[in-house]
């Protein structure tokens, strides 16, 4: 069947036999966007986290048929070197990653959190950021999340100043 959707701002249309194929494999193997990772395939580790309609979704447990007409954002679309997302900027400033494999999932989950809760407390971070990091970089992540909130606030303030 044919599925049409937008990914990282670009319209995309794919032909796929099994409409229940997880979005993760469409993103990685058909669209060749490798930033979203496979860790378990059982929605337990969060390495596959991306955004659908701006909401965090674990793509290993999301059938491609549900993506029809929706907007998907992956780590590649969150930001890049020329224009990093505040979360990515904070991750760089705090030197968070070690092996780095789980990090895109964490950054996507964090970006989704900051969309809803611009200035999360430690408790809100603990409740919402439940991905697994085996290198256990959580200590720096927590600092980076608070920093990202600050960077985002500054960014929003300056955007408001520009548009007002």
């Amino acid at each position, binding site marked *: 069947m044919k599925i049409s959707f937008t990914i990282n701002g670009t319209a995309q249309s794919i032909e796929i036999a099994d409409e229940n194929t997880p979005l993760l494999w469409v993103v990685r193997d058909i669209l060749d966007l490798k930033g979203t990772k496979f860790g378990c*395939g*059982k929605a337990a580790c969060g390495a596959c986290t991306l955004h659908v309609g701006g909401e965090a979704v674990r793509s290993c447990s999301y059938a491609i048929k549900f993506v029809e007409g929706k907007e998907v954002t992956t780590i590649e679309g969150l930001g890049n070197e020329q224009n990093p997302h505040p979360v990515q900027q904070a991750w760089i400033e705090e030197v968070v990653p070690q092996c780095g494999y789980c990090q895109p999932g964490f950054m996507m989950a964090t970006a*989704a959190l900051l969309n809803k809760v611009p200035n999360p407390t430690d408790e809100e971070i*603990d409740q919402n950021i*439940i991905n697994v990091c085996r290198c256990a970089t959580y200590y720096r992540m927590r600092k980076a999340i608070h920093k990202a909130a600050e960077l985002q606030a500054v960014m929003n303030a300056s955007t408001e100043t520009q548009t007002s």
Partner: protein
Amino acid sequence: MGKSAFGYMFFGFLLMGVVVAMSYPSTKGENLSVLLDNPVEDEAYHKMMDVLMSPRCVNCHPSDNIPKQGDDRHPHYFGMARGENNLGYQATNCTTCHQTENNRYSGVPGAPEWSLAPDKMKWEGLTRNEIARSMLNRQHNGDRSLTELEHHLTEHELVLWAWKPGVDAQGIPREPPPVPLEEYRAAVKEWIENGAIVPED
């Protein structure tokens, strides 16, 4: 007292009881329980309650704001909880993982409107009679009338999910409730038609 006198008195009390029972409204008001024992309703009642007390139902009617998982009813992994609106936390909510259908690759169950039952509908740890009374209590049951309650129990997609609960993370099919769907539906209808009577404790 002679046998026949006792018999007349017994019949008299029975009649009085029926009159008293019939004078209670059965479709409106707060408490729809009736203090009469009827074996036919009991069978339907127990079939219905066997279903509603199974893990497929009670797991999402927790008493501690934490959804349960599996037949062993362990707390949902990763600290998932009710959150503010029965949908989990702000950015990591039910629909981050649970979609409108079961997912056979991940073993994550799914159905439309997947969420926790509201706190007022907490069932975990209650007896079947307590659950039944709670269901009939319009302050607990989302202000549903008996007809609306029957519809919810027999037609709501999230409720019906229990009979097609999909496979778990190991690929093993989940246990549906102990009564087949049509039998359960018939039991619910019968129980309600016969006055939605909850037995005495």
